[in-house]
């Protein structure tokens, strides 16, 4: 089926666009296979809005008389109203948006069609890979190796072809361990702490089941990981009760008797549907127009979003503490090892490792810990807070991670090399993008569709000079120290820049930040010309 089959009316004139912060404007709406384009007729104050249809989360139609209004609610939380003359045209437009905004086929998505003149498909794709990661950390080479046991994705469909594992474990052993872990996600290295040689590994839950099945190879692999040290920690992102219950469905946890050198710590982190519902409630609260302080604060509390932020940050803090302060290696997992596991391993690395705090380092971290580690982006980000459709696998885990990073950024304004603008951009891109980076659910799926050959890489694009300037933190002063965020409820704030972005409240703050940015750029130029004038 062609896109054009879904477009009965491609152009409508005399449409009025209403949007907070802007005066209404009258112009033409045009629907293409991937975009909704609104352009102003006024030549003087021309205004154009180009919206990826993929960005549209829900639409509402209201017909009155011979005209209609379509309310468009986007995944980036923006809300637009289009007043369209002519009932039929209005219904046609609405129908096209509804169909085209939730096409299922990945290969028909916009990243496969996006061809900007300044990017070439032959450019390097991505910033990091397990191979590169391994080769960069020379200290690892003694005791760790790069295994290509998963090169055909047969062991673990959600892992990349290469992974880092202890040298003393051969591929046959890994094959057995993979059978003992949910989804085949056997323990792999994700972080090496240079200061004391301790590591973070991540996996999924062991399949002990109700009979307390054991797997010698799994135990051996874990033992090899703490080689020489007296003990290691396992951080399980479920409560101990949840972990017990998981045994009934074939899952489980590492028992004390079989893993005697390991100390298990349970921290309950919310996942899946509960997290999505929390986001929906929060966004609803942010849009509340009742002007009632009590109502706002109770809705904010009821949404539980800030509690999730707090739990994520404090669990990541615990993980970092085990590694940095306690000097022990840690294995992290929950059930599937594709969500909360990645959330806390990412945040812990940000806390401990200065390399992850540069613009490039942070993007590489996201690439390793989310894209390559198999976070199912397509399932998790299919819909956002406004959608009326029944929830399937949607869950804003990545968004929660960005929120936590923002909290760290707010508490340590000098320590991160990137700005809030980057976090906002990523929060948009993950739901609807011109780039292929967040397409699909795993490395395998991306490979099958030829994502790296047929789309452009977001991370590379963000490092182009202009963009790099824009997304850098002008106040950045690298520090070698670990940055420990405060997780007191009083220290955590709503991420207004994201959640209240399209309402009046944040506009002036953005202007102030813009002002600081300009000043720093100006400063750079002046310092340069100053230096030149001194030389001559």
């Amino acid at each position, binding site marked *: 089926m062609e896109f054009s089959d879904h477009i009965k009316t491609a152009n409508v004139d005399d449409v009025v666009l209403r949007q907070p912060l802007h005066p209404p404007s009258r112009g033409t709406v045009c629907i293409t296979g991937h975009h909704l384009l609104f352009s102003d007729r006024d030549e003087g104050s021309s205004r154009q809005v180009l919206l990826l249809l993929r960005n549209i989360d829900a639409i509402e139609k209201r017909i009155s008389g011979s005209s209609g209004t379509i309310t468009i609610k986007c995944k980036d939380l923006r809300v637009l109203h289009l007043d369209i003359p002519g009932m039929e045209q209005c219904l046609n437009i609405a129908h096209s948006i509804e169909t085209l905004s939730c096409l299922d086929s990945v290969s028909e998505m916009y990243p496969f069609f996006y061809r900007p003149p300044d990017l070439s498909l032959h450019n390097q794709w991505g910033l990091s890979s397990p191979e590169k990661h391994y080769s960069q950390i020379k200290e690892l080479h003694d005791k760790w190796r790069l295994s290509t046991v998963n090169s055909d994705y047969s062991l673990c469909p959600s892992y990349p072809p290469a992974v880092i594992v202890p040298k003393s474990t051969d591929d046959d052993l890994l094959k057995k361990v993979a059978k003992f872990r949910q989804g085949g996600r056997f323990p792999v290295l994700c972080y090496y702490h240079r200061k004391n040689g301790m590591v973070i590994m991540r996996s999924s839950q062991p399949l002990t089941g109700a009979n307390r099945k054991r797997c010698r190879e799994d135990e051996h692999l874990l033992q090899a990981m703490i080689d020489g040290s007296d003990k290691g920690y396992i951080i399980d992102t479920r409560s101990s009760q949840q972990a017990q219950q998981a045994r009934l469905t074939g899952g489980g946890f590492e028992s004390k008797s079989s893993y005697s050198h390991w100390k298990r710590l349970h921290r309950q982190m919310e996942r899946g549907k509960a997290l999505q519902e929390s986001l929906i409630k929060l966004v609803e609260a942010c849009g509340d127009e009742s002007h009632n302080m009590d109502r706002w604060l109770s809705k904010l509390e009821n949404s539980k979003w800030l509690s999730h932020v707090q739990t994520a940050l404090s669990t990541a803090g615990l993980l970092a503490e085990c590694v940095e302060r306690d000097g022990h290696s840690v294995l992290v997992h929950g059930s599937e090892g594709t969500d909360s596991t990645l959330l806390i391993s990412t945040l812990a690395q940000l806390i401990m490792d200065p390399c992850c705090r540069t613009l490039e380092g942070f993007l590489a971290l996201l690439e390793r810990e989310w894209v390559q580690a198999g976070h199912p982006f397509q399932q998790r980000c299919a819909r956002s807070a406004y959608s009326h459709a029944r929830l399937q696998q949607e869950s804003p885990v990545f968004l929660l991670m960005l929120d936590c990073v923002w909290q760290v950024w707010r508490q340590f304004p000098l320590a991160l090399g990137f700005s809030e603008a980057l976090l906002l951009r990523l929060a948009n891109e993950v739901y609807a993008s011109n780039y292929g980076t967040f397409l699909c659910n795993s490395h395998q799926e991306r490979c099958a569709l030829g994502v790296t050959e047929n789309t452009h890489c977001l991370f590379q694009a963000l490092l182009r000079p202009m963009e790099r300037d824009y997304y850098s933190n002008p106040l950045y002063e690298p520090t070698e120290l670990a940055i420990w965020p405060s997780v007191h409820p009083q220290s955590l704030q709503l991420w207004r820049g994201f959640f209240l972005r399209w309402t009046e409240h944040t506009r002036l703050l953005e202007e102030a930040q813009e002002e600081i940015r300009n000043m720093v750029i100006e400063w750079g130029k002046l*310092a340069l010309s100053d230096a030149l004038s001194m030389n001559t």
Partner: protein
Amino acid sequence: MPTVEGTLCLTGHHLILSSRQDNTEELWLLHSNIDSIEKRFVGSVGSIIVKCKDLRVIQLDIPGMEECLNIASSIEALSTLDSVSLMYPFFYRPMFEVIEDGWNSFLPEAAFKDLESMTDEWRLSEVNKDFSVCPSYPPLVAVPKDVDDDTLRKVATFRHSGRFPVLSYYHKKNGMVMMRASQPLTGTNGRRCKEDEKLINATLRPGKRGYIIDTRTINVAQQAKARGGGFESEANYPQWRRIHKALERSNVLQESLIKLVEACNDQSHSMDRWLSKLEASNWQTHVKEILTTACLAAQCIDREGASVLVHGTEGTDSTLQVTSLAQIILDPACRTIRGFQGLVEREWLQAGHPFQQRCAQSAYSNSKPRQEAPVFLLFLDCVWQILRQFPCSFEFSESFLVLLFEHAYASQFGTFLGNSTAERAKLSLPEKTVSLWSWVNRPQELERLTNPLYEANSLVIWPSVAPQSLLLWEGVFLRWNRSSKCLDEAYEEMVHIIEYNKELQNKVNTLRRQLAQLETEDPLLQTP
């Protein structure tokens, strides 16, 4: 905060802790800053927990039970001295050179000169020069030119505590005015006072209506009649439209502050608990209501082009919050450091806000609250909200607001002593104490208080009052619980960048000028 070991010393006005190491800072705490203390004993070591009015909490571990008890009883006695003339400002001698005596910086005569340059419809009346007409007013007040002093005397008897309507603000853009007063004493019989009607009608343009903003709900205003108070009825004030708002009174605000501070100090790690406690304190609601009312007053003046009279019951608390915030919104001059001092001086000190009563105790006090209320702190909180929303429109930074909060509760300066100009005159404060403004208006201090992002903005600024846009003022309420080191560093870095930027720009300008000069001097260099 790190633990410090040292020697404790009590003087008549200070608690001093000096560490045994050299070169380290000493802690000097004014006794008047201490809100309450608690004693604890473990064996022979006693602990005194000192809770301050600026919300800081300090624990002193003192070896020896008797010594500890002695220290505690001294602090208790010295921190609750009632006599104003024994307060520290009367003993403090400035260690700095006074460039400009703050006691003379903001005299009503000077403010009136500015007014005269804009309009000739007002005069400065001396009717209250011996404070007999209204004890809480200054000797000089601005009133409509056509209203004589005898009329004013009659109006004063018709208004609570003699606070007859006076000019608070003149909006240059359209000539509209804001006045403030206390409630009219209509009582249950609906008493009227022709002079009062004449006075406020004198501020209206022909055919124009004005607005009366009553900071009480209609119910509260009705009930006030039973106690001799009341409001301006439609029948007697047909040219005025009355709008009632619900701003809370003193005791409610004090309780709200106590609850808020308790919530901020809650050590439990529960997000739900924190948010419920924050909500239950109602503090943010008060902030929102006050800001909303101030916006309403500003809207009547700027957008409706109408004059406004603001009052509640006594006209010394919520009334001043509204009139002063409306000026921040409307008048760019109030957003400069000096202009803001002038505003505090005019609308709070001279207007008779009873600082001594309101700020006698703060959130930690165990004694029964009397007249205490964080009315001024709420005003500062509201200014902070506007400043946060318009980070480039204020010449001063947050630290100026924090400074005013601290000095309102405990200070070496005499500015916030007493409850009115009359009391201050009786105490001879201008002669015997130093003004806070003398200290603030010195280059080094001004530099510290300046907002590096300031770009004069001549427009009216309308803050958003949606609950989502109002934040807890961390700089005051979480100041001692969070480490602000990283935030301070970032701020300093920003200031540094801005300074350097200015310096370089100056250099560039000098070079350009030199180049231009060379070009004119040397015709060979001139470009064809």
